[in-house]
């Protein structure tokens, strides 16, 4: 088979971090080549080097495309060589229309005038290619779901007629149905001879789609294998550097008193009068248990927990009791004081101040406790954040590292640390393992298990059914804002949950 792409001895250093250390990476023409590795292993960095984001001269080593040596000074250069990338973080202008985003920087024009009719017809064509027939080209991008935006991003990359398509964790925020659509598109493209580099922490997808796998660890290439010659466990042990016998380390619940009880709870839709995001939901959580919440995207899971956390003040009705005491949460400050903590699903938007250091992010909601008379005790701050830096194994040179420079998975750990520090009674985690590698996932489950042993109640929203089934003790299922199922984990199965999630039909 011919080699489409070769990266030789790539070394890339950031101040204090050697992100890539003489990495070699070879991809054959027309294959789907998966790139696996722990959080911070250097996957995204390698792809940024390849796509011209880190220009020639800021790294060492060689890039060969079709055997020809290339030196990219910007993204345009790489695109001209047929390389298109979809970054881990969405890069859409939320206020622009779908069509505008699709052709951003590439607007077809005559004498400087954009050819809108052409743009719209082309957009429709590309949207259809990624299974988004229902979306109009003039819809505002920000109003669409994350999954749909991701597919638009893919359509955009496709529209550049790339020979080599790089997808950095494209499915982290997608529903299973959307994942299926995406994988089918990739198969379609493979038939046409497009080469794909596919980064994902979801190994089942990797084995589903990829022809070969390269594994990175700590900025070095560990191995490259054909998918046929290797299995998931082997990949994991190569990634993590040790055997991982168990994926979901459940501990038995030892449920105590009810901490949080919600009765006849409804949330009005702020955008549409008369509609409800959450409709008459009742449930309770006990100390020392993990309550899983399952459902399809858009079922209202995130809205449910965000409103409990005080972000929909004035729109909620029904009763909420914490520790047997009736409360009406006014705002997030109040919610935190009452012992709630929320690890949101969108860490960039709701979780982190990217320009701040790890320590400043971790202590942000807890500043009160380390600041006598409103003056922050710097040493207390360092002490506490170091604790989470170590126990969560956040990969960063120090707690003073800027969060925006961390890899995606490590950013997620910072958010987790931030909320653990508030020592909540009820920890709500919304997609806690999104974008996190298997080893770190395992660690996060262990942390959750430690917490429930200490009597914390955990509410976990997850779109990954194996995770819900593997970790939680009870599972609630939501559908269109209504509670459509509640299972003990012993009775729950994927089928039962899916039936409830689609409305019991």
């Amino acid at each position, binding site marked *: 088979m011919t080699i489409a792409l070769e990266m030789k001895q790539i070394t*890339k*250093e*950031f*101040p*204090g*971090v050697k992100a890539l250390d003489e990495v070699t990476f070879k991809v054959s023409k027309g294959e789907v080549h998966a790139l696996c590795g722990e959080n911070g292993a250097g996957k995204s960095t390698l792809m940024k080097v390849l796509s011209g984001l*880190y*220009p020639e001269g*800021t790294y060492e080593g060689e890039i060969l495309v079709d055997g020809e040596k290339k030196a990219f000074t910007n993204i345009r250069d790489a695109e001209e060589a047929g390389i298109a990338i979809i970054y881990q973080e969405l890069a859409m202008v939320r206020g622009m229309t779908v069509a505008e985003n699709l052709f951003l920087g590439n607007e077809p024009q005559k004498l400087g005038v954009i050819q809108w009719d052409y743009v719209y017809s082309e957009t429709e064509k590309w949207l259809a290619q990624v299974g988004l027939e229902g979306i109009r080209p003039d819809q505002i991008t920000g109003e669409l779901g994350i999954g749909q935006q991701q597919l638009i991003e893919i359509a955009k990359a496709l529209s550049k007629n790339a020979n080599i398509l790089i997808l950095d964790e494209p499915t982290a925020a997608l529903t299973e149905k959307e994942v299926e659509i995406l994988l089918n598109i990739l198969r379609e493209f493979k038939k046409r001879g497009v080469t794909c580099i596919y980064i994902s922490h979801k190994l089942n997808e990797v084995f589903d789609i990829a022809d070969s796998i390269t594994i990175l660890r*700590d900025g070095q290439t560990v191995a490259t294998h054909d998918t046929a010659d290797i299995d998931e466990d082997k990949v994991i042990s190569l990634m993590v550097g040790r055997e991982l016998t168990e994926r979901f380390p459940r501990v038995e619940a030892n449920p105590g008193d009810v901490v949080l009880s919600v009765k006849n709870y409804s949330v009005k839709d702020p955008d549409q009068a008369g509609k409800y995001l959450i409709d008459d939901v009742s449930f309770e959580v006990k100390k020392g248990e993990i309550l899983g919440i399952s459902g399809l995207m858009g079922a209202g899971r995130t809205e449910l927990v965000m409103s409990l*956390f005080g*972000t929909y003040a004035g729109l909620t009705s029904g009763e909420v009791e914490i520790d047997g005491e009736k409360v009406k949460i006014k*705002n*997030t*400050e109040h*919610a*935190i*004081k009452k012992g709630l903590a*929320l690890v*949101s699903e969108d860490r960039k*938007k*709701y*979780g*982190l*101040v*990217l*320009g*701040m250091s790890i320590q*400043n992010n971790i202590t*942000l*909601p807890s*500043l*009160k406790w380390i*600041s006598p008379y*409103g*003056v*922050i005790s*710097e*040493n207390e701050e*360092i*002490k506490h954040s170091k604790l989470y830096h170590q126990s969560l*194994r956040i*990969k960063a*040179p*120090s707690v*003073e590292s800027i969060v925006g420079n961390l890899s995606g998975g490590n950013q997620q750990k910072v958010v987790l640390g*931030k909320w653990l520090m508030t020592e909540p009674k009820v920890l709500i985690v919304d997609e806690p393992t999104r974008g996190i590698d298997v080893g770190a996932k395992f660690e996060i489950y262990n942390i959750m298990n430690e917490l429930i042993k200490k009597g914390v109640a955990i509410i976990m929203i997850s779109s990954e059914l194996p995770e819900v089934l593997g970790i939680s003790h009870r599972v609630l299922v939501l559908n269109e804002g209504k509670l459509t199922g509640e299972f003990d984990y012993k009775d729950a199965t994927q089928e039962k949950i899916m039936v409830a999630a689609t409305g019991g039909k």
Partner: protein
Amino acid sequence: MSTNTELVQNKQKVKWIAFDLRAYTMIAALVLIWILFTFLSGGSFIEPRNLSNLFNQMSVTSVLAVGMVLIIVAGHIDLSVGSLVGLTGGVAAILNSTYDWNAIVVFAVTIAFGALVGLWQGWWVAYRAVPAFIVTLGGMLIFRGVLLGISDSRTISGLSDGFKTVGTGYVPQEWGIVVGVLAVVVFTLLLVLKRVSRKKFGFDIEPMVLSLLKIVLVSIIVFTFVLAMNDYKGIPIPIFVVIFLAIIFTFIAKNTVYGRQIYAIGGNPEAARLSGINIKRRTLMLFVLGNTLAAIAGILLTARVGSATVNAGTMYELDAIAAAVIGGTSLLGGAGTISGAIIGALVMASLDNGMSLMSVETFWQYIVKGGILILAVWMDIYSRQRKNKG
């Protein structure tokens, strides 16, 4: 894990050499400007008399810039401070000269008045969600209008001596020395306390040599300043006020919960809100602080000039913004330092002073200042990009 800890130690080791490069660039630029003017003016620029004058000139902008930094860091802007300097100066002058109020009382009332104005502007921004740009643009017109009204468009003079001292007085030479010694002692004390505390927590402490070096450096800076000022008439009271305010607000920005929250709000308002920060209340307080500082600046200006005119403070908001931005404050919010803004103000004032000294024509002065502003911000952005690309 082993690589991790190794990296941590590494970082700790190099940290004391790798100070903020950007801050250095600013200081280097300032020194360059000073050398240039000293050379071009045949030495009169660097004379204590002129420096004293220079510090006096920068004091009003500096006080405004201190407040402006925090407001910009939080992602807002305040266009009204120039007019507010005029208005508060006018109010103070009227109370002092027309109504014969005692200077101290006038100062207290004027500062309270500034705080009240801040409460009003902050309420519109925080609780009525009108963009700060608009609210303070409105404020800029309103305050100027009120000033024209209450002063009958006339210049108000005849201030009491006590009033004027604040703008024209000097700290007596011997007291200047005492203050200098005190500053060094306090600095040393803080350094020792920090070492003790870090030791208690079991963290690495910086090498003793470095601590001593810092103390020596600070002593040199403090005493060069004090002695230079004493060589003329002593430390000008306005610059004394500026240093005092700069220290207080640096402390607020760096060491208090309030300051940290302001930076978080500017960096990512959504994340700040979900971290339980009451954004509205913090924003309100921000304008109270900013406008209180504007009142202080108004008093300083009126006292220095000896009268309140209807045009006083015109365009000062732009000087304050320029000083903050030259000093590294990001207009996108989330980043900026008080000390940077003070250096920024010093750069602007040095340009003004130096060019006047050389009797450069006014039109050139505008052109040069505008050019320097753009250049400085470009340098800032450029150095940041370099740093990110690694």
